């Protein structure tokens, strides 16, 4: 079974989106990056984001990640912000009672995008 299936597939992502996004929007370190984006559109993107982190089906390439976050890098997006997002992924999965070994795998997938997201 893939990590995505083990975590619980699309229903798990749906459950995670609100919890994760609420943490992000409440975090003073990073919330400014999400200003002015419509909630519904943003929720769809968060879903894409989490599906990816959970090892689920997606079509994003490293190049897409670079392009998708380039405007944020221009606004100062750096490692500390990336770390904050990593924290929230972990905390969200913990809240959903996902076992620690699966959380570690999801974190490793998210971590692997660091250089692309930060445009390095």
């Amino acid at each position, binding site marked *: 079974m893939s990590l995505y299936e083990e975590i619980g597939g699309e229903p798990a992502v749906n459950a995670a989106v609100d919890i994760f996004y609420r943490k992000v929007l409440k975090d003073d370190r990073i919330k400014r990056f999400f200003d002015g984006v419509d*909630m519904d559109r943003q929720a769809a993107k968060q879903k894409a984001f989490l599906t990816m982190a959970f090892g689920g089906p997606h079509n994003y390439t490293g190049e897409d990640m670079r392009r998708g976050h380039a405007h944020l890098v221009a606004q100062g997006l750096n490692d500390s912000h990336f770390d904050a997002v990593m924290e929230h992924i972990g905390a969200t999965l913990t809240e959903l009672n996902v076992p620690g070994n699966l959380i570690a795998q999801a974190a490793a997938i998210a971590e692997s995008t660091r250089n692309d997201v930060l445009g390095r």
Partner: protein
Amino acid sequence: MPKVNFGGQSYDCKDKSVLDCLTAQGVAIPSSCHSGICQTCMLRAVGGNVPPKAQEGLKPTLIDQNYFLACSCYPEEDIEVVLPNDALTRVRATVSSIELLAGDIIGIKIQPSQTFDYRAGQFINFYKDETTSRSYSLASVPALNEDIFLHVRKVPDGLVSNWIFNNLQVNDIVSISMAVGNCFYVPGKPEQDILLIGTGSGLAPLYGIARDALYNKHKGKIRLYHGAYNTAGLYLAEELRKLEEANSNFSYIPCISEGPAVNGFAKGMVLDVALADNPDLAGWRVFLCGNPAMVTSAKTQTFLAGAATRDIFADPF
């Protein structure tokens, strides 16, 4: 490069929506919101496939027949399109009454010439002429009201709202679309608390939704916050206070944002008042209508206060 074939002509649509592509080349396609919401620019594909994005929000029966929204359609292959069958999408209706509700808002009742399926809080597109229309929300409840009830605010220099204000008369025959939109009460979860926040004519859908919920014997709290600059903008107040007296789970909180405090009215911006009264919205159903800045901010604020994204319904206008 994908081509759009329409009326025997072929049009190049590189990086343009089908709507922009056709209108730029002089083809008149009815349209209004240009953002995939109002469904005025619906066309039908009779050849080729349209991307799924162009069919988002359409009823399954329309999707099956290859209807799509021209403003959201960026074709990936050649397609042949036709205008939709008017009989399917437009309804004739007779204006049965017009009344002034507030200084700049009129209430219009219209009677469709055929059975008209809708949910309170959805909206119709009201046609000024063949290609010009604007969306107006349904304040009536099908089970309670014979006529369709609209609240139209006069927008300074607004084309259609001024035409409605200045020219529309009782007994006029008008053309409207079928009802569309997702901002309505769905029966079920009768214990769930409901928060409704609106400004100006944003009361229209909320007035319908609240009464629909009560009609469906909703048990949870139903709290309606209506905001305006001053008391003159708070129309239907008497009806809403009566509704409050008749239903112990319904409350109506009119809010004024300017001038001195007035007895019986909350003072402040409607969103601030509603959030201060209801700081924990976990498990609530939320409806937000009216001023776009208020609605956008309210979507985020009510979400942060605990409401789930799937329980937040909004129409900014």
